[in-house]
């Protein structure tokens, strides 16, 4: 397995970034990975980054998660959602200069015979002041189309220094 850089957005300038779109994604890899370093502008301690595939804003995403940290572990599941929320990242009321990290893996993204499955691990620490959380998310996009674009929408936009990188992974 080898990993190759495809595209990068960031580090964000002083005004931040509203939406990140990776378009014209090459179709010659086996899997994709997105690596995220982000802080959001919304006034909250903990917010998501929304994931949209091929611009599909319909209610075509399902998924479950397990999460905990400041709070006791719990699980959840959502069906027919849109767009899909990847948690959790700090908002503007979290501690200054705190950023969340997330890694999203999207498997077999060019296979036009199957619905697309992704998983994410993400989290951040708010110095035990609330909102601190880690989360494992799995999701599916109920569409068999090959993925050619990925849109990430940090809740309220991301702040300066946020970074988003897309990689392609090749099987042996």
């Amino acid at each position, binding site marked *: 397995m080898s*990993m*190759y*850089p*495809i595209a990068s957005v960031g580090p964000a300038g002083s005004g931040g970034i509203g939406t990140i779109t990776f378009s014209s994604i090459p179709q010659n890899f086996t899997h994709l990975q997105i690596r995220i*370093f982000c802080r959001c502008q919304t006034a909250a301690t903990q917010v998501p980054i929304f994931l949209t595939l091929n611009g599909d804003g319909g209610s075509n995403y399902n998924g479950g998660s397990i999460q905990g940290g400041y709070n006791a572990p719990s699980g959840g599941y959502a069906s027919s959602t849109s767009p899909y929320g990847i948690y959790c990242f700090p908002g503007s009321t979290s*501690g200054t*200069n705190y950023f969340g990290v997330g890694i999203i893996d999207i498997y077999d993204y060019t296979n036009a015979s199957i619905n697309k499955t992704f998983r994410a691990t993400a989290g951040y620490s708010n110095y035990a002041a609330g909102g601190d959380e880690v989360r494992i998310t799995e999701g599916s996009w109920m569409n068999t189309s090959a993925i050619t674009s990925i849109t990430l929408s940090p809740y309220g936009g991301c702040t300066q220094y946020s970074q988003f*990188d897309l990689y392609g992974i090749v099987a042996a």
Partner: protein
Amino acid sequence: MPVSHAGNAGGSPKGAMISIGFVTVTTATSDIQFFNIPQTYTDLRVVLSARRTGANYVEGFLFNYLDVSASLSGCYIVNNSGSVSNGIVSNQDAATGGLVPAASASSTIWGTTVIDILNYSNTNTYKTVMFNSQCDSNSGYGANFLGVSVSKGSTGGLTTFDIATFSGSDLWAVGTTAELFGIRTVGK
């Protein structure tokens, strides 16, 4: 103490994930250290294949970085042999890194941990580190661990870190390995 003087890979390596340091424990030790980490990559990833000499089935470990004192916080969720719980800490000297099998586990069982340090060289932000750890004991015990930590002691680039046991008598077992990768993005 096994240490790795990390460096840029020789030749012209291809791909995004470049091996820049490797440690094999040849004598049981309490610390595995990487230093002189190049500041030219976007992220770092550590892959730890480990076992401990402590008497338990499963043991935790620590991750020291940025040489800060009482400035680390973190949170995690853990499944320790079927018991699921969470944890949250602050004002720590080191982060809780995960769980690995120890001496009471079957002798050929090793645990795996992946540590991701994103944007590690950005000198304007605090560093957030994510830990993803799994292990089994083949004796009725096993663990899954996902955690993060942040250091508010420094916004400096991360140039060294140390993966440590809790005590001087509970050591990294011989054969434990740790590999450090630099992950480069477009244009790096």
